[in-house]
């Protein structure tokens, strides 16, 4: 893999944080969370490497979503 730009590293770091949060969810719903996370990232895979504003916007959006879903009240997702 080529050297990653700062933004690319931020995206991967967000994905890693999501996966770490998923570990705190009940075992039976972890796969759902994983599929959902993956789908959310996959939705924006078409965004060009140089489209900084879009990437930053989705990073912020992702961080907010992560905060929301990491609340312990949320046990499953579809």
């Amino acid at each position: 893999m080529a050297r990653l730009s700062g933004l690319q590293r931020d995206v991967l770091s967000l994905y890693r944080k999501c996966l770490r949060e998923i570990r705190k969810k009940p075992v039976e719903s972890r796969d759902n969370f994983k599929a959902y996370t993956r789908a959310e990232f996959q939705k924006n895979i078409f965004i060009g490497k140089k489209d900084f504003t879009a990437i930053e916007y989705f990073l912020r959006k992702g961080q907010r979503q992560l905060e929301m879903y990491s609340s312990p009240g949320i046990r499953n997702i579809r």
Partner: protein
Amino acid sequence: MLRSAIVRSLRASVPRAVRTPASFQIRSSPIARPAQFTPRFAYQGVRLYSAPAGLNKEEAEGRIVNLLKNFDKVNDASKINGTSHFSNDLGLDSLDTVEVVMAIEEEFSIEIPDKEADAIHSIDKAVEYILAQPDAH
């Protein structure tokens, strides 16, 4: 005369008896002792409290290979070997690589900081990292 002889011999022996442990002490200091003895003694105390050092290269590699075999996004399982590159050989994208590294974390019950995790893109890199971690098991 006998008494004076005894006193003299005592006087002669006492300083010698005092001197001998002193000279031992000097000799057992790390400067005078051969260097190979000191680390062994220092190490033994630590070993008593720790689990036996567990991982060898083959075991770590085998566990990572097994983990990848169970990973459903690998497009060609026959290509998995000790030096496979995650994206070039196994067809994983960057998100999959993150997933693999997280799975490795879980397998060896360690936590890999982001900076190191970003540098792991191949099985041999992962094995190298795992072996460098003292608390991986």
